[in-house]
């Protein structure tokens, strides 16, 4: 019996397939790995459930006193009758508007994770090129988002069967989705990839920025260049850039009514009386429409190519010497010199005992200092904004307060999940200063940091009035508790950063009903601030319960 190991000749291996074959194999491997890891993530289940819930919220009963989409014609607000075409268009628009905002957070961070966990060097050492690696990531993200988007068609069908009027026209129900969702998801996946590979955008700062980029790319630019929403129909232009389908939907409405449509309202719109509904014109698909949607899809190439270019540039930087910090000395060797005396068997340096007094306070201090050290450059404008709020006169102080609150989020957003993200759990959790509940340790550190950094903002609010001071205190407490609770529960900062940024945007609007710090209206709504603080506390309690359950499970 021979012991020789059978080795395939190079010509017999799959690796010898042509260059195009290699690219496809590499991409297929990427897609398989990404899809498997995403499908096994609890966030997928949460997102599916949230999508289902959102579909039911956004298509209420026809006689309900609320609507999700309304338009203004001749000074009155209207929505559509529940035909197959209208329900299909609403579900398609909401999917392509809302899922990109949330879906970005689901698919972003994959390249960053590969880089941080040193997976990329292993992939780079294979035949996979940077281009096929990134294309694989994009296809996987695109497919994942598209599957999530497709799930919205199930409640759409159910809602038509329950509330719908007219014939069950499957084409009318599905066609809007087919026209809108692929372009929206492809563009989102490419933007996530671009953020992921761009230095400065691949982390917490990028997660906050996405909210604004999304508003700009998906709403403001299409609305601006199409001229659909400026009350002057002569400005209307055909556009090939409409990733969320806003212009597409506007044109559908315009075909349903005789007068010009001045505005389109999206969201949960509460009314005093049942919604006025108009017949909604059926969708007619022609060559022009198909060409415009195809062109919108093609816009995906822009962020995708930018991502590939930046990644190729950034990957080359790995060869450079790492940046020095805290030292002005130049020319020091990259690797410290050897201690040849010790290497030859001589004694190592004597070890001097240290006297340590571990305590909870010192552990909190350590975490607080770490928060400061790992906050990158964002901490400086954050502190400047907090300080400026003390000196800007009158209602102008609201602006630096808003900036402070926005920049606070990326500074504290990942603190609760730091150990999970960096893999330091075993080392950190074995330390003596930590209390039995790590959630409470994180909360104490984050709250202390927020209180210290936010003290100028708090002081300014107190100077405005005791009610304003209390509202700001409750708002800051909510922020700290939400960061600690959600960060711990999700093992990352994306959920907190996404939700907080969206809330911040709503809260800073004049007299917003969701002003959780009571700083942006004539009077603070203490009940709102208290409700937010209670919600933050609930997140912490839930996180502590999960921690306890995990500990009990071992």
């Amino acid at each position, binding site marked *: 019996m021979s012991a020789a190991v059978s080795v395939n000749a190079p010509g017999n291996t799959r690796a010898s397939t042509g260059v195009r074959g290699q690219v496809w194999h590499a991409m297929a491997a990427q897609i398989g790995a990404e899809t498997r890891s995403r499908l096994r993530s609890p966030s997928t289940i949460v997102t599916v459930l949230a999508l289902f819930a959102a579909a039911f919220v956004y298509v209420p009963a026809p006689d309900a006193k609320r609507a999700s989409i309304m338009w203004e014609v001749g000074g009155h607000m209207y929505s559509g009758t529940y035909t197959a075409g209208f329900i299909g268009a609403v579900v398609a628009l909401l999917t392509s508007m809302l899922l990109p905002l949330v879906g970005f957070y689901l698919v972003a961070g994959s390249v960053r994770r590969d880089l941080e966990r040193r997976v990329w060097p292993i992939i780079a050492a294979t035949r996979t090129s940077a281009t096929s690696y990134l294309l694989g990531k994009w296809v996987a993200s695109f497919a994942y988002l598209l599957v999530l988007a497709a799930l919205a068609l199930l409640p759409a069908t159910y809602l038509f069967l329950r509330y719908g009027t007219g014939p069950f026209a499957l084409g009318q129900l599905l066609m809007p989705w087919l026209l809108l969702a692929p372009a929206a998801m492809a563009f989102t996946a490419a933007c996530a990839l671009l953020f992921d590979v761009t230095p400065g955008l691949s982390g917490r700062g990028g997660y906050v920025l996405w909210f604004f980029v999304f508003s700009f790319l998906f709403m403001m630019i299409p609305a601006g260049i199409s001229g659909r929403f400026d009350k002057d129909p002569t400005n209307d232009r055909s556009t090939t850039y409409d990733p969320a389908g806003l212009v597409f939907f506007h044109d559908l409405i315009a075909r349903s009514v005789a007068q010009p449509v001045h505005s389109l309202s999206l969201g949960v719109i509460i009314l005093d009386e049942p919604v006025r509904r108009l017949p909604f014109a059926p969708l007619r698909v022609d060559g022009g429409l198909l060409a415009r949607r195809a062109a919108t899809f093609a816009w995906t190439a822009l962020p995708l190519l930018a991502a590939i270019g930046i990644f190729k540039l950034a990957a080359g930087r790995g060869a450079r010497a790492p940046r020095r910090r805290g030292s002005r000395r130049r020319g020091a060797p990259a690797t410290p010199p050897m201690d040849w005396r010790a290497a030859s068997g001589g004694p190592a340096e004597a070890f001097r005992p240290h006297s340590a007094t571990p305590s909870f306070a010192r552990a909190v201090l350590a975490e607080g200092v770490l928060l400061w050290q790992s906050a990158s450059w964002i901490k400086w404008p954050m502190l400047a904004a907090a300080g400026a709020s003390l000196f800007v006169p009158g209602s102008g102080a609201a602006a630096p307060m808003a900036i402070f609150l926005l920049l606070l989020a990326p500074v504290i957003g990942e603190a609760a999940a730091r150990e999970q993200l960096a*893999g330091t759990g075993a080392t950190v959790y074995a330390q003596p200063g930590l209390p039995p509940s790590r959630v409470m340790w994180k909360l104490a550190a984050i709250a202390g940091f927020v209180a210290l950094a936010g003290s100028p903002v708090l002081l300014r609010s107190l100077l405005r009035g005791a009610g304003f001071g209390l509202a700001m205190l409750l708002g800051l407490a909510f922020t700290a508790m939400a960061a600690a609770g959600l960060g711990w529960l999700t093992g990352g900062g994306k959920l907190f950063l996404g939700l907080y940024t969206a809330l911040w945007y709503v809260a800073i609007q004049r007299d917003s009903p969701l002003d959780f710090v009571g700083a942006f209206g004539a009077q603070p709504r203490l009940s709102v601030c208290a409700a937010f603080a209670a919600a933050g506390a609930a997140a912490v309690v839930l996180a502590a319960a999960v921690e306890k359950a995990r500990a009990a499970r071992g």
Partner: protein
Amino acid sequence: MLEITGLTKRYPNGTVALADFTLSLGEGVLGLLGPNGAGKTTLMSIVATVLRPTAGTVRWRGVDALADPLAIRRELGYLPQDFGVYDKLTAVELLRYFGRLKGLAGKELKVAVEEMIDLVNLRPAANRRLGGFSGGMRQRVGIAQALLGDPKLLIVDEPTVGLDPEERVRFRNLLSELGHGRTVILSTHIVSDVEAIAERIAVIRQGRLVRCAAPEELLAHAVGRVWRAVVSAERLPEVQRAVAVSNLTRRADGVHVRFVAAAGEPAIAGAMAVEPTLEDAYLLTNVEAVA
């Protein structure tokens, strides 16, 4: 000082990583040897109080460490096998962070961190971000954080992984020094590391303690059970099935095979008994455990 009694760990997926593991440790260095998946890391994680066992007790200086984890953590230095670092921090910043968690403060903290930097030979890189560190340099940072706070119980899991030979020798010497007046548990796959410094060696397999003895005892037990033979390449598979091969080298006259046989003279023509090494002794312990 450290009493481990009846330790059992069953993971939620049903895997039994430790099964009724019992061991008593005093001062000195204990080498923990075992194949992959033997339960070494689980054992050390439980002793380091970062993992709870399904059953059993861990007592440190007479105190139940499972009921009162602080009793052990106050005197613990722990270097896990897979440990992360915060890439954006410098080595000094990370060590100060761990120093504070251990209860060091003020000048004591500053001095202790500086000493650790020198001890692990990282002075030229002390103020560089950890993101740019090589694997060996990160490992030295890990060693430094474990030594902060003068631990009386030092648990190090694969500490020499990634270190170059000079640094390995250097760290071995340091561990050997630290063994005086302290309890050191050293887990490694590198038998020569254990041989050089461990006063006792515990061999663990499938979650059970197979043997715990001084290296000399293990070697003495292996005398007469380690053999060498020259066989043809064709016969090699047959030999590999019959005995546990610890080393083989292809030469002009055939394949030189070094192997262990648990009992009696092996049925391989021309086999000669040879002086055992600790690696042979470890292999023999495993062969006997399987038998």
